[in-house]
C-alpha cells in the first residue's frame, strides 16, 4: 500500500490535523519531515496515499494550513 505525507507550516497545524484525522479514525503517524521534501525540522503527517486527497480537503474545510502532499517512495516508509 502506498504511503504519503502531508506537510504543514508549523507543528501547530500538524497537531490540529492529528486531532482531525484521529476523530475520523483514519490511521496516521506523525513523522519527521523527510529531508528531500523540506529542510524544516518539524513533523509531518504520514498516511495511506489513497486517504490523502480526502484528508487534504477535510483539513482545508477545517482551516488547517498545509504545505503540500507527497507520495513516499517504497524505501522511505
Amino acid at each position: 500500500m502506498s504511503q504519503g505525507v502531508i506537510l504543514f507550516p508549523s507543528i501547530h497545524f500538524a497537531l490540529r490535523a492529528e486531532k482531525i484525522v484521529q476523530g475520523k479514525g483514519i490511521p496516521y503517524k506523525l513523522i519527521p519531515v523527510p529531508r528531500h521534501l523540506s529542510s524544516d525540522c518539524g513533523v509531518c503527517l504520514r498516511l495511506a496515499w489513497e486517504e490523502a486527497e480526502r484528508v487534504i480537503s477535510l483539513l482545508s474545510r477545517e482551516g488547517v494550513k498545509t504545505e503540500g502532499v507527497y507520495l513516499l517512495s517504497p524505501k522511505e516508509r
Partner: protein
Amino acid sequence: MDKIIYFDNAATSYPKPEGVIQAMALFSHEVGANPGRSGHRLSIEAGRIVYQARERVTQLFGHADSSRVIFGLNATEGINQGLQGLLRPGDHVITSSMEHNSVMRPLRALEKEGVAVTVVVCSPEGFLDPQDVRRAIKKKTKMVVLNHGSNVVGTLQPLAEVGEICRRQGVLFFVDAAQTAGSVHINMEGEKIDLLAFTGHKALFGPPGTGGLVVGERVEEKEIIPVKKGGTGSRSELEEQPDFLPDLGESGTPNTVGIAGLLAGINFVLKEGVERIRSHELGLTELLLQGLADIPGVTIYGPKNARRQVSTLSFNIQGMAPSEVGWRLDEEFGILCRVGLHCSPSSHRTIGTFPEGTVRFGLGYLNTESEVRQALQAVRQLARKG
C-alpha cells in the same frame, strides 16, 4: 510554617491547585522534550501539550482559532507584542488613566517614536466613560487599549460598550485581562475584542512565566511585527522570521513545563466554572467591603461595589503608612498583601492616592470567608490601637 492568609492573588495566585503541580511534575518526569523542534515522540508529546493549552485558551475566551494564541512569559509580554507589533509612527492610540505600567510604559516608549497617545481620565472610582472613548477617536486612531479589571482597586470596565464603539469606528480593541482572565467571564466575539493579553499565573492558576496574547480575526497576521525574533522550529531554511501565527510571535524554546501547568490550571477553571469562581469571589469581596466600611479610620478606594469590581481592593488606615500596615499584617497576623503603588502611578493619581499608595487585598477563589473575617479582625485591631 505558621498559618498564613494569602491575600496577594492580584500579584500571583497561591496556592495552586494540586493538579497544576502534578501536571508540571509529570511533564518534567515523563515528557521533558522541546516542542516543535525535533520529530521524536517526546518532542511531539510536548507539542501536543502546548497545542491543548492553546485550545483551552480559545475555549475560555470565546475565540475560534487556536493558531492565534501567542504564548509568552506573562501579560506584559503579550501587551508589548500587541502594542509594538501593530502601532506605527503616525498612528493614534487611546487608553485609560487606570492602566498598569505594562501598558503605560510601552505606550510612552512608542510616543517617543511618533505614536500619538491619548489617556482618557477615569472617575475617582476608576470607571471609564465609553462616551469619552468615542469622543477621543480621530481619523488616525488605530487602537483602544484598556485594562479590564484594575489591579489597584478592582474596577471593572464596560468592555462590551467600548468594544461596540471601536467596532463601529473601525478601531482595534485591545484588552488587558491580567486581573480578570479566569475570574470574570470574557468573550472576545461577544465583547468585540480584537486583541486580548492574559497572564497564566493569576486567576488561571498556572505558574509564573506563562501568559500571552490572543489575536482576533480582524488583525491581519502579516501586519504584526514580532518583538522577538529567533528560532521557531518552522521555516528553518530561512533567516527571516516566519510571518504566520503563532510562530511569528514565539521565538526560542517555550516554557513548556509552565504551559503544562497552565493547561491544568485552565482545566481547573473550566471544571469549576468561571461563573462559580466569580460568584465565590464576589461573596468574599462583599464581606470584606462591608467589614472594612464599618471600621472607623479606614478609607476604601474604588467602586466599593462587589458587582462592579474584581476581588481586589485598596484601603488605607488613618495615620498609618501603607508600608507599616502591610508589615504589621504580615508580622502580627500572618496576612500577606501588597502595599504601595502597585506598578500603576496613573491609577493612584486617578483615585487620589499618589504618591503614598494603598494597602491592597487581592482575594482569590481559594480564599475563604473565615480568612476574610480574620483579616477584618486584624485591620480593626490595627485601626483601633494605631
